[in-house]
């Protein structure tokens, strides 16, 4: 197996907590692969993503990207945050431009940087809104700018932290299609945190299911053998899609039911 991104024996324990959040997580991700991490809330999905991003140091074990151990955050692992995290005092263009100037733009001329920002804006179909500030655009548009900002750094791995969680169902579907297009066009490796089963099955090559936290670990990994490009309408009745969906639902609700729910 190609070990492009290699998470090995990773444990994370917060200070003043007796039990680790994540315990002995092992996961190998290949170049260009789209992996979804799914689990109930509180199972440490976002913690896992933050460790890959380098925003959180592991307590034990580690993460290796292309043969180099991760030590702190960097633009090779761009994050799309759940709440978009755009800087409100900058326009859409300036938000992306700041990221470009700081990262890939260092070796570019001014004109090349501008062209690259415009190209990224076009990729998420946000060119007309380039001079708007985040407060002036909708939630879906903000998240598209967030995705564009992450892609503008030409990351080796794109980390999506429940990127569509705060959006309505129609906007979410639209953005999922766009992310699939971008993944097909750029071949970027993607790790996506989600709690939406349909989203995980539709978008990913593999679905990593975490057991309940604390002390969570990888419970099962499901390979989604659906040909790309995928079409949400055609897949809705596809037996392979339904089977994958059922497998994930069965893991989440039968074998590892939400502890908060079962306690209630």
């Amino acid at each position, binding site marked *: 197996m190609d070990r492009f991104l290699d998470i090995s024996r990773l444990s994370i324990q917060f200070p003043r907590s007796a039990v680790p959040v994540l315990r002995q997580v092992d996961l190998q991700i290949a170049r260009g692969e789209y992996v979804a991490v799914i689990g109930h809330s509180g199972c440490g999905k976002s913690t896992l993503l933050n460790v890959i991003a380098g*925003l959180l140091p592991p307590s034990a074990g580690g993460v290796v990207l292309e043969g180099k151990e991760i030590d702190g955050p960097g*633009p090779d692992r761009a994050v799309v945050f759940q709440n978009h995290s755009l800087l409100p005092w900058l326009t859409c263009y300036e938000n992306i431009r700041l990221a470009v100037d700081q990262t890939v733009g260092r070796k570019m001329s001014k004109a090349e940087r501008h062209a690259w920002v415009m190209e990224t804006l076009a990729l998420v179909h946000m060119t007309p809104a380039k001079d708007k500030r985040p*407060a002036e655009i909708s939630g879906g548009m903000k998240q598209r700018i967030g995705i564009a900002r992450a892609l503008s750094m030409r990351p080796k791995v794109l980390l999506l932290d429940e990127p569509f969680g705060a959006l309505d169902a129609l906007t979410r579907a639209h953005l999922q299609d766009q992310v699939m297009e971008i993944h097909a066009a750029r071949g970027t490796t993607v790790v996506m945190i989600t709690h939406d089963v349909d989203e995980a099955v539709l978008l990913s090559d593999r679905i990593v299911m975490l057991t309940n936290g604390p002390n969570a670990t990888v419970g099962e990994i499901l390979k989604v053998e659906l040909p790309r490009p995928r079409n949400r309408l055609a897949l809705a009745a596809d037996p392979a899609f339904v089977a994958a969906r059922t497998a994930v639902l069965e893991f989440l609700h039968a074998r590892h039911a939400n502890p908060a729910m079962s306690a209630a």
Partner: protein
Amino acid sequence: MTAVSTKPAPAPAQMSRPLLARLPQPSRITPVLASVIPPVMILAVFLGLWEFLASGPAATLPPPSKVWADSYDLITDPFFDRGGLDKGLFWHLAASLQRVALGFAIAGIAGILTGLLIGTSPFAMRGLDPIFQVLRTVPPLAWLPLSLAAFREAQPSAIFVIFITSVWPIIINTAVGVRNVPQDYRNVAAVIRLRGPAFFWKIVLPAAAPYIFTGLRIGIGLSWLAIVAAEMLIGGVGIGFFVWDAWNSSNLSDIIVALVYVGLVGFALDRIVALAGRLATRGTAAA
């Protein structure tokens, strides 16, 4: 279904144009009147009540009509200058504003710099915060004797009182703003490796700007409160001394006119700083 069918049929397309043209145009004057009429009415009622209460033989304060008659020159000509301290209100206000401008400018620079230091360095915060919390409760005028003793001159003493009064809210608000830069922005900066001065200029300062301007706005208000009191004691040209001088010559009408001007100028100062803040934070203060 029945509810839908009872609706009137939509008008044919060619009908919609003349219909739209006949829609009532929203008046531009109505909202202006709506915001102007209530204060004017209340003011008229207030003046009437004042006139009534101050007209009796036992009244100690002059009614508005007497203020108008007594201080007609003062109200209508703020620009006269007969030498010495016998000047129009404009000159007194200008002298006070000059002191405030100088004292407040020093307070703004020193306050923002100190606030940035306290906000970024836990050591500076632990060391300085308790001292500041005590000092900021000292009333402005209590500093005056000390500053007179130190500077031995009225002008720098008054400016120092302005400075020491307005600097605390600027320091405290700046420090809070810097400490409250959202973790989201810090994460973004970490991912794109924005560090050191670039992190400060591109993330910390814009994120703290709304807090800084809140501090400046409180500061300018306190400055204006302090200058009037300080000038009463130090003398010279200035609106505070003008009030004190009028009191000593039992000129109550002049005092009332001066107070109205003090209020209007204070209001204008507050609005100017608020406007500067809105422009500088480019409308993100609310976001």
